[in-house]
């Protein structure tokens, strides 16, 4: 019984394709869940494009790029949505992506954006999240000197984990190993992914967890729970900018560019804050939802340029492993 459905879709495929072009967008898993931006974006875009928008979920950002590399030029993807600036240099080097034709877009990013291949759709700062009223160290050194406990993610298997690695490296450069040694006794444990550590934090295993400055917005808006807050660090916070790009081998290049244009429009951007829990890359006309104004906004945004992120990552990983394996 179960097989008859895909079979039916397969047979109906050519018929559907005649009336409507199909745009296949590869993205990370949490984008396409019923709580993510996926459903609303699909409805809104299909209302104007005269096409069938199909999302394919593939793990997280790094798994997404790996998937595309496995498939190579034969991929079905027309657009890849969900890479971040730590991956764009490697992604560009694969030659699998094409230039976009969006021209200049007025992005509301904390840093200037110039890229003829990758278009940002949201962004956020990495931050430690704690329970309101708990001790709030002012920076990594203070955190290392304190008795506070933290749970973090492994940079080898998790995007925020990698973000923390680059955060410390960007803020402290050659002093990064020293910072990590200071943090070693604060780290309760390192988990494979964000979910395990966030779950552990909510169960009270640690005082703080590595997440985003926007995480408290979820608790505030979706759960009406104002007890979580991000801790501002005075050396600045590392920025994650999430981007999308057209796949070079796509036979729907024009439609793919239409999608990118739609992506930076209000219809898409207004969905982002309360589904992806990140800042929109272009602030929609109605502004940010209530609750976002209460979030910590760092004075300094730290980020490695895409071209330097790869090299910084490898050095920082070595330092991290050495400092924490003692």
């Amino acid at each position: 019984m179960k097989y008859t459905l895909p079979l039916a879709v397969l047979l109906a495929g050519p018929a559907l394709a005649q009336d409507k072009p199909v745009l296949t967008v590869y993205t990370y898993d949490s984008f396409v869940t019923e709580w993510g931006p996926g459903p609303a974006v699909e409805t809104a875009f299909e209302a104007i494009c005269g096409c069938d928008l199909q999302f394919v979920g593939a793990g997280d950002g790094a798994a997404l790029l790996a998937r595309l590399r496995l498939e190579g030029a034969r991929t079905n993807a027309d657009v890849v949505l969900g890479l971040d600036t730590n991956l764009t240099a490697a992604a560009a080097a694969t030659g699998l992506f094409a230039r976009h034709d969006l021209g200049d877009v007025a992005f509301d990013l904390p840093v200037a954006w110039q890229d003829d291949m990758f278009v940002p759709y949201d962004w956020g700062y990495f931050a430690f999240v704690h329970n309101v009223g708990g001790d709030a160290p002012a920076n990594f050194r203070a955190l290392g000197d304190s008795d506070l406990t933290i749970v973090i993610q492994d940079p080898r298997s998790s995007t925020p984990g990698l973000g923390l690695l680059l955060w410390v490296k960007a803020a402290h450069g050659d002093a990064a190993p020293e910072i990590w040694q200071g943090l070693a006794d604060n780290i309760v444990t390192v988990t494979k992914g964000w979910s395990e550590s966030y779950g552990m934090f909510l169960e009270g295993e640690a005082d703080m967890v590595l997440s985003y400055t926007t995480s408290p917005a979820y608790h505030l808006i979706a759960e009406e729970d104002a007890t979580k807050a991000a801790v501002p660090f005075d050396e600045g916070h590392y920025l994650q900018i999430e981007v999308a790009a057209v796949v070079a081998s796509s036979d729907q290049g024009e439609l793919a560019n239409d999608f990118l244009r739609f992506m930076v429009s209000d219809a898409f951007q207004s969905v982002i804050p309360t589904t992806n829990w990140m800042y929109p890359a272009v602030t929609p006309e109605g502004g940010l939802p209530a609750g976002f104004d209460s979030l910590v906004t760092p004075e300094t945004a730290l980020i490695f340029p895409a071209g330097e992120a790869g090299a910084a990552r490898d050095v920082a990983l070595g330092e991290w492993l050495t400092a924490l394996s003692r």
Partner: protein
Amino acid sequence: MADRAQPLNLAVWAGGLAAGVILALTLGTITAVLTRAEGAFALAAGDLAAIRFTVTQAVLSAVLSCALAVPVARALARRRFVGRAVLVTLMGAPFILPVIVAVLGLVMVFGRAGWVSTALGTLGLPPMNIYGLHGVVLAHVFFNLPLATRLILQGWLAIPAERFRLAATLDMAPRDIARQLEWPMLRATLPGAFMVIFLICTTSFAVALALGGGPRATTVELAIYQAFRFDFDLSRAAFLALIQLAISAVAALLALWVAVPQATGGGLDRTVERWDAARLGLRVLDGASIMLAGLFLLLPLLAIALRGLPEIATLPAGVWAAAWRSVWVAGLSVLVTLALALSMTLAITRLGAAQWGFATPTPPASICPKKKPEREGFPTWPVAIRRRCAVARGIEAVGYLAMAASPLVIGTGLFLIVFPFADPVTLALPVTALVNGVMALPFALRALVPAAQEVEARFGPLADSLGLTGWHRLRRLTLPRLRRPLGFAAALAGALSMGDLGVIALFADPEAGTLPLLLYRLMGSYRMDQAAGVALVLLALSLAVFWVLDRGGRVDADH
């Protein structure tokens, strides 16, 4: 007539074919990944440390799980009490939990803010710290103690009731019974249990990392993960996968070599009555064993249940569709496991049985010779027999390989194989069922092979003298006698498949996920409370599947 030159019958070919399927899934997928690799591979500095840590934690976890399982299994074997069957099933639950749920359950009980630490706090003691190598081992024992207990318990229940009756007649002390009846059984059962647990622990990754407390707890699987997604170095990923297989192959061969099969002789399959265990000291010991193991295994389950219960009402609508998909994936996995395990078991038994016949003076066991028979004064085994025995052992060893294969590499390899021909997304569920079924094979073999060899040893001569062969022998003799291990194997395969994320994460279709995938997605979207509710549903469903199938193998049996 030591070698009756039996033709290699259908069973042997089927067993060979099953082994072929598994080789294709393990080595085939690694090859597929290698064909896409560019450049040569080299081990990184950290890889040796990863290999060392992997082996260390796996050995410790397996030793401890087995050692603790012996008193628990013995207690369960010789005690009858109300709720025993429920307890046995419930105690098996940790084994079938999704990793992320089990970790959170353990943390809720043994963590820094867990129940134990809170209790210690009220006594003015510092909280418990479970993060480190001991935490990894604790988690692995939590997962695998139930499995070890079940495998050993089966060994205990397989000792014919007549033995204990005879021992009671002879007024044997518990110590004598242990030496004469129980030790030989353990000698046959423990190496296999050890090996299976060792294999599970070698591919551990998320548990090892979360409870290991940091990058010191880097396992080979994490190194594979890193090679794949961090460096996109496919050759290194494949090479590490081969290393992981090699570690496991060595462990499997060692265990098969160490295991000394039982050569017991027949009984009438009656219920065991244990007159020897009535002493007060033994009763206290057994009671304490069951109680401690029960607390250790059930408290985290209770924590998961308490956490999830209030959320059941708030569960998203997709839960029941996902649950349904999980159930049929589990059903398919059961079929895969049973088909593969049964054909392999019959082949192994058939090949092993080739050595004896009426003219063979002794030993009567239908099992391949372990030691050079000359030493015991027998003529050298004919080459044909030795060859058959090698094939039998080879088939069995292959059965354990799948467990040792890196799930990430299997998934990636399958993806590469499927992609040129079909959209992997549409095949996500059947492929997941296939891989899950193969992953459960080692447990099925562990349960089936000794039981089948026992049947052959006990009833083989009688069946031979009656000319009971082929299909009739299978239907009249072998299958009825294997009902209990078959039920257990099906139960484990079904429940494991329910709870395992498996390769579906790599193929996922946003609208057609399984329950574990839904759980991970909920957690990834901050919805920890709903995820807790799903975890409870998953736990209940897995247990129900386990209970139904396991009971199915034990209808009208007393245990």
